[in-house]
């Protein structure tokens, strides 16, 4: 094996332009992948590792009681941010588990009455994959397309829901393109047609106001690490009135009302609760701040670079996300150049895959354009200086790579790239 240098260890030799000092560590602009923990969250968790370490299910001593108190306070904090009752919140290991439990749990429990589920083609892999498993078991699944802006077509949705439909699962905010689905309208439709409404809110909690009553949400998945809380914890909201029943995936001691057995990880629960409380308190101001940063970034990029396209709706979108196609520049090569920034390729669902993103394809973005996309995520710790640095870095490298791009040259010469017969390989 040859030595494989990590990109970061062999940074490009750049003349540090005046007023542009390279950051010591890359600037983190990937807040949809995960978030750093808020120090206040860590603070709240620490006692539960060392002094208040009891098993929250122990009934006979103070160690158990104080751990239980921590868990129940956290449960109330999670419930509060979505307008739920604390008895409707169960802790899981994350949104992946919550999504699996919601889809498989509901489908299995009601399988004698109904056998059909509806979802979107742009859902997170863990929803799509749970659906595939259900199909293998014999359930019917409808995968609805989305409109060019990434949003569900409500008329299509209404048509898809039949009296055999047990559950509709539509994410609140898409992880790649940040678009916000019309939850209240979807909830109303589902209620009217008698299907349960599950929504994956991993990317939505703490970013947009959510209310399970006003939106008629029956099940909701939540993740800790997307909201400045710890990794390895999440929650599932399960409506009590009218009651939604689930068949558990993990059985054992019957914790979490029998829906999810296993000793609760007290510090992680406490961390998720605190993360929700902070997010709820700061959401309004934070959304304004992020909108300002996002707009500042996007305006500068558009001013300095031609042929940049936004993927997904701008209006119905969380402020902390942009998904941009830098036409004629391949995304992976751009990421290699901008190694002072940590962003994610919008073009590959995993770094191991060379396939363009299924989400962008679903919007009708053509494959060539999908290969030029970056997902840029802003969050709680992003500063104006970082945003400005990111603009300069991106502009510099897009320009350099376009000078090196045969497609850019052809575009400049007025060649229609679609008229060329490319040899597929």
């Amino acid at each position, binding site marked *: 094996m*040859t*030595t*494989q*240098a*990590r*990109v970061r260890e*062999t940074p*490009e*030799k750049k003349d540090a332009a005046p007023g542009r000092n390279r950051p010591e560590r890359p600037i983190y602009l990937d807040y949809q992948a995960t978030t750093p923990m808020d120090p206040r969250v860590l603070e709240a968790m620490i006692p539960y590792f060392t002094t208040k370490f009891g098993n929250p299910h122990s009934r006979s001593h103070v160690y158990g009681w104080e751990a239980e108190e921590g868990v129940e306070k956290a449960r109330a904090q999670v419930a509060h941010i979505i307008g739920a009752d604390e008895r409707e919140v169960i802790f899981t290991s994350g949104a992946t588990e919550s999504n699996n439990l919601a889809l498989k749990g509901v489908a299995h429990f009601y399988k004698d009455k109904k056998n059909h589920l509806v979802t979107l083609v742009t859902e997170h892999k863990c929803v799509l994959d749970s659906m595939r498993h259900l199909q293998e078991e014999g359930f019917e699944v409808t995968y609805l397309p989305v409109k060019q802006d990434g949003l569900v077509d409500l008329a299509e949705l209404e048509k898809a829901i039949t009296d055999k439909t047990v559950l509709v699962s539509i994410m609140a905010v898409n992880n790649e393109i940040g678009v916000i689905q019309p939850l209240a309208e979807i909830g109303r439709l589902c209620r009217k047609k008698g299907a349960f409404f599950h929504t994956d809110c991993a990317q939505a909690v703490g970013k947009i106001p959510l209310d399970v009553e006003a939106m008629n949400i029956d099940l909701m998945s939540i993740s800790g690490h997307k909201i400045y809380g710890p990794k390895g914890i999440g929650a599932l909201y399960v409506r009590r009135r009218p009651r939604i029943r689930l068949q558990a995936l993990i059985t054992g001691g019957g914790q979490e009302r029998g829906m999810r057995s296993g000793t609760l990880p007290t510090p992680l629960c406490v961390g998720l609760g605190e993360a929700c409380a902070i997010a709820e308190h700061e959401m309004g101001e934070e959304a304004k701040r992020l909108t300002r940063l996002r707009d500042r970034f996007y305006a500068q990029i558009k001013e300095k670079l031609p042929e940049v396209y936004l993927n997904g709706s701008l209006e119905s979108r969380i402020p902390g996300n942009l998904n941009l196609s830098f036409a*004629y*520049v*391949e995304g*992976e*090569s751009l990421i*290699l*150049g901008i190694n002072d920034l940590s962003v994610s390729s919008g*073009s590959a669902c995993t*770094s*191991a895959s*060379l396939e*363009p993103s299924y989400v962008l394809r679903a919007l009708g973005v*053509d*494959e*060539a354009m999908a*290969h030029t996309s970056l997902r840029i995520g802003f969050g709680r710790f992003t500063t104006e200086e970082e945003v400005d640095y990111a603009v300069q870095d991106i502009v510099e490298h897009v320009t350099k790579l376009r*000078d*090196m*791009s*045969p*497609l*850019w*040259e052809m575009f400049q010469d007025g060649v229609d*790239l679609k008229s060329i017969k*490319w*040899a*597929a*390989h």
Partner: protein
Amino acid sequence: MAYSEKVIDHYNNPRNVGSFDKGADDVGTGLVGAPACGDVMKLQIKVSADGVIQDAKFKTFGCGSAIASSSLATEWIKGKSLNEAETIKNTEIARHLALPPVKIHCSVLAEDAIKAAIADYRAKTTAKVAE
């Protein structure tokens, strides 16, 4: 994704980026790949009357490995006769750049680009002879 130092070096300091006049008699142009697949290489050679590649240039749309493969290809073919240049194998490019398995197709594309440029040049000269 981790890249080898050689890939990083070619990416940061690409050799022979640019274009020749595609219509010139002594220029051969190869354009391979497809935008939809995420990589397109244009490789051009300037050939002397006695069939030696005097100069070479490339432009590439693609990942770091694709850029490095084409950059290296232009370096290797300069000064070689057409017949010699034609024998360059993608495996040599891949080995030199320590490309991981998922990036082997970049070296294949570079080999294709060399062959396409040579074929284009030869087609031009035979056409001229025929005139």
